[in-house]
């Protein structure tokens, strides 16, 4: 019975009605809050599934001695479970060793990664500047104008850069943003309705 599509759809429709009732008419506040909390529990359960799946996959890599992978898998699983256990030691997430690892290993690695990838961002942006089509030409020209608008030297080179830059920001950009946001909002509502009516089924698996 639980596998039936109709059970799923009825539950979805009921949950939607509760949330809408709460938003529009301030009805059932405690029920709506409980439903929102359920999402947090579902997320926590999902994390458990994720850890299991990840561990199983890397264990397979280690067992099969997958080339260029199994050593990294050992390193990954070792580090992951070490941090996980340290985080669970009392006082929870405030354990001294855990915090030492966090501040002296995790944060510097994260900062280093951020510093390194900055160059790749620039590379990505530079690829965007390559004029291969009308789209990229428009992007390149407008980007150059915006760079010149923001850089102090831009106004010194030509006084028109700030004026054109302001116009790009306030007219085409705002107009386009609003157009896409309105379209997205309508699409979002339409998808919700399709889901509740059981017409949009692809994101929860094959048709039951």
């Amino acid at each position, binding site marked *: 019975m639980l596998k039936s599509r109709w059970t799923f759809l009825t539950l979805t429709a009921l949950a939607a009605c509760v949330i809408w009732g709460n938003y529009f008419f301030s009805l059932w506040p405690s029920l709506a809050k409980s439903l929102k909390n359920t999402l947090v529990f579902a997320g926590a359960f999902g*994390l458990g599934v994720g850890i299991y799946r990840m561990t199983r996959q890397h264990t397979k890599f280690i067992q099969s001695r997958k080339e260029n992978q199994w050593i990294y898998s050992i390193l990954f699983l070792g580090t992951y479970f070490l941090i996980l256990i340290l985080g669970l030691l009392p006082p929870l997430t405030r354990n001294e060793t855990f915090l030492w690892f966090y501040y002296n290993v995790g944060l510097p690695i994260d900062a280093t990664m951020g510093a390194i990838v900055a160059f790749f961002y620039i590379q990505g942006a530079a690829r965007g500047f390559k004029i291969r089509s009308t789209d990229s030409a428009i992007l390149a020209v407008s980007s150059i104008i915006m760079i010149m608008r923001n850089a102090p030297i831009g106004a010194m080179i030509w006084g028109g850069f700030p004026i054109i830059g302001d116009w790009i920001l306030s007219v085409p950009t705002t107009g386009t943003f609003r157009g896409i946001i309105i379209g997205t909002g309508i699409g979002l509502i339409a998808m919700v309705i399709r889901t509740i009516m059981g017409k949009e089924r692809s994101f929860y*698996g094959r048709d039951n």
Partner: protein
Amino acid sequence: MIVYGCVFIKIDIIKVFIICGKLYIRSIGKLIVAIKTMSEKVIDLIFFVLISGIIISALTKWVKFPKAKPIPVTNALRDIVGRCTEMGRSIFTDPGRWAGMSGSRAMAGFAGLSILSHVAHLCAEVDCKFVLVTQNAAALPLITEAIESRYLEYPSSKPPEIRFLPGVSGNPYENVFISMVEREKAGAVISIGPVGTSVGLRVGGISRTDAMSVMGTDRVDLVALMAVCCDYIVIGEEMFALGALLGGEEALLSSIGAQDIIKALIIGLILLGLILVNLGVPFTL
């Protein structure tokens, strides 16, 4: 004398028009003031009911709306899967970095997953290797169900790989994603869903490889970079519609057609606002 009479009549008619116009504008102005005094939620409710009503009437076929035309990426997905199968390469996918299971961004994640579920089905049909990489723990059971259930009808196909990368930071995730794409020489990358600014790294990385790229997001500020670097893009509402377009059911296509009618109504409202503002009536809600 007659000429003078006609001129007077003309002037009178013009005066009447002006008076009627002013009265009309005043009444619209009063209506707008009345709307302004209404709670914001009441206006939300009116629009929600209106939009939902139109969509429901399309889905239940009460009203016939023009069917939506396919967008380029609809046919491209099948071609991409075919290309990867012929080349013996895998397809890397990502439903985006969701910030949870609720909110509009989560719905964008569901939309992305809906499209990737179709791609998984295409891969299962032709035995093409399908890899899904995700950082979203909360939606992992849903992702697993949506993808793996597509393979139930094709037990002899290569099973899909769902790779979970724990962490919250965007940059390391993008780095790992790109390195996997490069190392495993992926034939295509399909990344549709709620992505963050770190996706700039991915866009740059993918354009270094020979993988075909299909990307889409609900974030408007990231669309420009995708538009110039990717082979196909899915912008904003297309993302929500593509799952339905790929499904191909008549009611679904009609519901997308109905969205165009709603957009036309909104354009009408915008034009009305433009006219009223220029006539001196404030139209801001």
